[in-house]
């Protein structure tokens, strides 16, 4: 009890003797900081209110979330390309991984008996797959092809015709033609594989041995003409033509050319070409001329794809290159833009938020034989987040993104 009383007395002296002495300085301090505190709180409230969205319910959105259980090898990575040979799906990261189309598990694909390699490029034409291998300095080693689901491989002797001191930027198969974009000391070049001579040749016409700017992507216009016509974009200009004679598109009206501003190209498979730019505008080529429309002004776009399902309401999915990343849906018929997963492909904002939002979209891919399936290829960078999601169209609706 004595100890207790001592404690009480010790506190007594502090409470009763010091309180008054401290009150006045405390009031002074309050007066000094009252104004700045009020300003700080006001700024905090304004900032928060300005970011409020009355259309977004936090708790109901969380309630709609689905647990994503994807393959571990798609965590904290970047998927840069996809393809199929009719038996398997393939995805390119630093290596190529595959799984049976109807299967569940993804595995690393061995290339010619080698499973410890770096692959800067992958492409498929629907039955044959092509993989570029590079050494530790990212110099091209060779390009391999397989027509039996990766069981046996054929080296295509790419170094002999492309060069040994170049780095592969990407591979792409369009209309059964394999294109190889590379860069080296001479600049950026595009080659195609000439089946007749079994060698790689310059895809541009003879006046363009190389470019000074990166090549972004190439598509076939989808028209069964001979020779087939391809559309290519560098980061600044549009090119078109048959393999071996691709030349700059010199259309004077509405030409999409923009210095370091071209970010994506897509084809509807029936002669129409879309080019997305860093200023929020998409250019459309059809019937010999370019037109354009603004998806979102002053907003950097990214890769895009024309989605044909549902057929009554076609959409353009276009990635955002801004800090919020993810993608937008643009309804050409209704001239409406949907952001943040507010429309049918994502099915709900919560699914969009917990899958794609804030991730850089590397591209979209649909298997040619299955337009009811779409994959979104992402750069996640963060642990615990997946880089590949699939969305399936069934019963008149898209089912939402599900981690692979």
């Amino acid at each position, binding site marked *: 009890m004595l100890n*207790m009383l001592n404690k009480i007395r010790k506190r007594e002296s502090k409470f009763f003797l010091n309180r008054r002495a401290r009150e006045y300085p405390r009031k002074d301090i309050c007066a000094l900081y009252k104004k700045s505190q009020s300003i700080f709180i006001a700024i905090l409230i304004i900032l928060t209110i300005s970011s409020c969205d*009355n259309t977004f319910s936090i708790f109901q959105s969380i309630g709609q979330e689905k647990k994503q259980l994807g393959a571990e090898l798609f965590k904290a990575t970047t998927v840069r390309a996809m393809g199929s040979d009719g038996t398997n799906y393939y995805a390119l990261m630093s290596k190529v991984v595959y799984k049976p189309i109807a299967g569940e598990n993804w595995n690393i694909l061995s290339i010619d008996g080698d499973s410890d390699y770096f692959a800067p490029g992958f492409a498929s034409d629907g039955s044959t797959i092509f993989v570029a291998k590079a050494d530790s300095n990212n110099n091209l080693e060779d390009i391999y092809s397989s027509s039996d689901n990766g069981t046996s491989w054929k080296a295509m002797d790419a170094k002999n015709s492309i060069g040994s001191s170049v780095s592969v930027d990407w591979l792409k198969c369009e209309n059964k033609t394999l294109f190889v974009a590379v860069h080296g000391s001479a600049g950026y070049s595009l080659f195609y594989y000439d089946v007749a001579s079994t060698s790689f040749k310059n895809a541009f016409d003879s006046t363009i041995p190389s470019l000074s700017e990166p090549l972004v992507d190439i598509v076939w216009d989808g028209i069964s003409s001979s020779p087939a016509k391809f559309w290519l974009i560098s980061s600044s200009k549009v090119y078109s033509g048959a393999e071996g004679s691709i030349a700059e598109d010199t259309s004077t009206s509405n030409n999409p050319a923009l210095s370091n501003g071209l970010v994506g190209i897509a084809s509807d498979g029936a002669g129409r070409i879309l080019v997305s730019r860093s200023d929020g505008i998409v250019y459309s080529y059809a019937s010999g001329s370019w037109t354009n429309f603004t998806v979102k002004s002053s907003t950097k776009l990214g890769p895009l794809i024309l989605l044909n399902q549902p057929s009554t309401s076609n959409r353009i999915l276009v990635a955002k290159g801004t800090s919020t990343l993810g993608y937008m849906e643009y309804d050409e018929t209704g001239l409406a833009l949907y952001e943040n997963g507010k429309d049918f492909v994502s099915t709900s904002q919560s699914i969009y938020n917990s899958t794609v939002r804030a991730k850089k979209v590397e591209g979209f891919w649909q298997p040619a034989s299955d337009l009811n399936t779409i994959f979104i290829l992402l750069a996640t960078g963060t642990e615990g987040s997946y880089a590949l999601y699939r969305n399936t169209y069934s019963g008149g609706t898209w089912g939402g993104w599900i981690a692979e």
Partner: protein
Amino acid sequence: MSKRLLSIMLMISTLALTLSAQEKIEDPFEATRVKGDQSISIDIGGFVPLFVLDNTGTPISPSNMSIGAAFSVQYRYMLGKNFAIGGSGAGSFVTTVGGGTLFLAPIAITGAWIWSREPMEYEVSAELGMNIMRLYGNGLISPIAKFGGGISRFVDSSWSIGFKLNWWFVPEIHLGAYSNLTSYANFLEFSIGANYHF
């Protein structure tokens, strides 16, 4: 003899009166809590999502939130020997099943009823304020109410440490055409903390 006895009785009586006075002082509130006393407490602990109701009062099941963490800082000013008012700022987070993280940052005014038996102190409290929430880059401000209680023990004349439980009631209010998005979330905060009395 009678004088001696009287002296002894007088001494005993004096001692008894003194002890009696000291017994009164032993009531801690007589000594430790008076108007004007102040305290600052810092608490840290876990944060458990309990349940969420939609605008019709139907539970949103599952809530899809996992246990998280919370911390708070609170200032109190005694208006009397038992009642204190003050303010608090807190921060908490829970993770969601989809891999997101919900942040809550309430600022509130608080009222507390405090009583004690040396060296323990007990309290029940209520808080009302505004709550800033953020999920996937979307922010919202909502009202918030907290109800709870705690127990703490003085370790010296200025410091006490203790344990608190707080129920967080977080109504997420949407107006107009989006009133159907209104929902009511409930969380339980359990924490340990330190209180500085001055």
